[in-house]
């Protein structure tokens, strides 16, 4: 059912996929077991002449022991899933890199994305900082800290192949981080209904070797100062 997922391209993508596969295994087992058991029950206990039904009401602990045992199994599996989930959540959402290799400010607005790269001194003020639209470039295998901002309504920054999603609330700056491990473009979509042209709010993130990235950024800076002049 989940074989259509895009191949993951981020450092933590494999962790998230392993959790998804774990849940898939557990729920898949219960799906097959319970649907199978249901079909068996329907066939086994279809009404036949001469065969009556039980008067069992399931009110004693002895009768209920199977129910209790099964619920305990469900609870234990759920807790196991959640324990795994908690570790990954901490990695992806709570522990932001303290010394990121690059910090990019992601600006969302109706209906476009833009990405601001800081000046050498870390400042996001123009003209030293440069802003690219629709396409974000990042260096390969480097930890990138994203500072997400919205100008108007709620947007959501979603990179399906990187397994990263974060809503962006106007009036705040929300952090996220990313380390892409495969060269090439990966799709970006807005996943929070943001107005008439919400559907047009796509984009992409391009991961490339550090040298190529530096070259691209220099080109952007040159173009920006050209415009400023």
């Amino acid at each position, binding site marked *: *059912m*989940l074989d*259509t997922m*895009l191949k993951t391209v981020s450092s933590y993508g494999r*962790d998230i996929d392993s959790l*998804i596969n774990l*849940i898939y295994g557990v729920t898949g087992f219960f*799906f097959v077991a*319970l649907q199978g058991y*249901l079909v068996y*029950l*329907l066939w086994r*206990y*279809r*009404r036949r002449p001469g065969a*009556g*039904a039980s*008067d*069992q*009401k*399931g*009110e004693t602990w002895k009768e209920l022991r*199977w*129910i209790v045992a*099964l*619920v305990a199994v*469900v*609870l234990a599996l*759920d*807790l196991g*899933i*959640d324990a795994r*989930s*908690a570790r990954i*959540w901490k990695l992806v*959402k*709570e522990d932001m890199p303290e010394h990121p290799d690059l910090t990019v400010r992601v600006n969302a607005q109706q209906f476009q994305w833009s990405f601001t790269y800081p000046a050498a001194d870390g400042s996001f003020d123009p003209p030293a900082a440069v802003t690219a639209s629709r396409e974000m470039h990042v260096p390969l295998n480097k930890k990138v800290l994203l500072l997400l901002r919205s100008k*108007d*309504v*709620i947007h959501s920054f*979603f990179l*399906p192949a990187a*397994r*990263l*999603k*974060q*809503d*962006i609330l*106007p*009036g705040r700056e*929300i952090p996220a981080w990313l380390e892409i491990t495969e060269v090439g473009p990966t*799709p970006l979509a807005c*996943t929070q*209904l943001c*107005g*008439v*042209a*919400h*559907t*047009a709010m796509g984009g992409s993130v391009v991961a490339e070797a550090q040298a190529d990235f530096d070259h691209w950024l220099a080109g952007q800076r040159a173009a920006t100062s050209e415009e400023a002049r």
Partner: protein
Amino acid sequence: VSAIFSTDHKVIGKQFLFLGLLMALVGAFTAYLIRWQIAHPNVPAPLFGVVQYGTYNMLVTMHGTIMVFYVAMPILLGSLSNFLIPLQIGARDMAFPKLNMLSFWVMVLSSVVLLASFFLPGGAAAAGWTGYPPLSADPRYTGVPWGVPAWLLALALAFASSTMGGINYIATVITQRAKGMTALRIPLTTWCLLSATVIFFFSVGPLVAGAVMLLLDCLAGTGFYLPERGGEPLLWQHLFWFFGHPEVYVVLLPALGAVLEILPVFTRRPVFGYRTILVCLGVATVLSYLVWAHHMFVSGMNFKLAMPFSLLTILISVPFSAIYFCMFASLRKSAIRFEVPMLWALGFLSTFLIGGLTGIFLGAASSDIFFQNTYFVVAHFHYTLFPSTFFGGFAAITFWFPKMFGRKLNARLGQLHFWLTFLFFNSVFWPMFRVGAVGMPRRIADVSQYSFLNGVAGLNHFITVAAICLILSQAVFFVNFFYSIFKGPKAEANPWEAATLEWSAASPPPHGNWGPSAPVVVAGPYEYSQPGAPADWMPQAAVEEPKIQKQVQVKQAIPA
């Protein structure tokens, strides 16, 4: 006129049913247009024309609103509670019949306001059925000036209607029970309807407060949700989901109640674990208020809130899995009759299971990072709400139809309708999990804008064809339903040999339900296949009260 403006709970129950079915047609039409646009972006849809982006946003908003508040709520809570609660507990009518009538007509007004909002300048609300501000709070952002205020007005009326109904359901169960109808003899349907009402009552307050603030933001220029005016967009999400998650159980529980009622009748054995199920209902009612933020893992709320809410979400699987296992146990050692209501009940068991299991992908916060707001979520909640509203709803309609209308539905057409619906429902929503796994976002008006979705264009096309087939299959139901109301063979009082009180009244029951003699309850609701009994079932009402006493009661109960 007295047949239309009736205070008889049975008439009001039927009126809610007709209203829900009518609105379901509107909801189905919006679904058709949404699916058409996904399969054939920007190609004119037959019977409508090109679905513009703005119109698409209105359609997804209204589809969700209509299906939850104008189809699921009237059919499951409005219709079933009104029709069944007095009949199942042995009351002659609701505690407050006039309030009950008002409840229905306010709902009609609400539906008219909602449908009229399509024709307002700028059109209907287009901010999603969840109405997240700032998008919903400032008309500049959607370009729809009056949609959100009209949407809020319609919802306010709907909630007023549900509140009036709910007061009645609770008061009736507490005060109007027949002699001998002790708490542990109340049928599970009535218990479930009561739980659903309680869940609704204690969750709707915060939403109403939130809605007032949203209305003020729209019309009075306040900024409760607008950061540039010192407001907080997340506030709405907390208030909305504090209501929104319990609302899922408001829809689920009546369906569950209907299925629990149908299982013993067609298995000819008692429900397994009646008291366990009651305890689970109580636990689920309390826990339903404590899980709301699992809709908000990636919303930007404090990241440290995710794990507590993830754990609470897991806890709520305990009562529901226990109820599920009890229902499976109720099929063991039984003698199953595959009548049409039983098919729907079993269809509910089979399909809702998928909704429950796929919820784990979303309740675990880290996998939700990926799945949130993709079509996986759409598939998941349709696997919970569709089984509740339609499998549960059709189970209830086909089961109680003889009691409601005094006639029988055609069983062949009923079987055809079930199998077509079962087939096409799964054909629509199963592939949607695959589409969601690619990462297709919800609520995008034009799939062709995303090249990474090209691979699932075929699947999307298939889903659309299946959705149209699913909608068209419902014609079988409507033909059977309306033909049988007028021309179906006459039904006896108890065609299914069921034990609960409603089957001791005539089909259809007269005004006042039992004529001069009120029932006296002497047994539990599910006394099937008991040793020593003359038949494989024992009615709850076995003894009739002496006649003189009754005539006094009738005078009190039925105003001339």
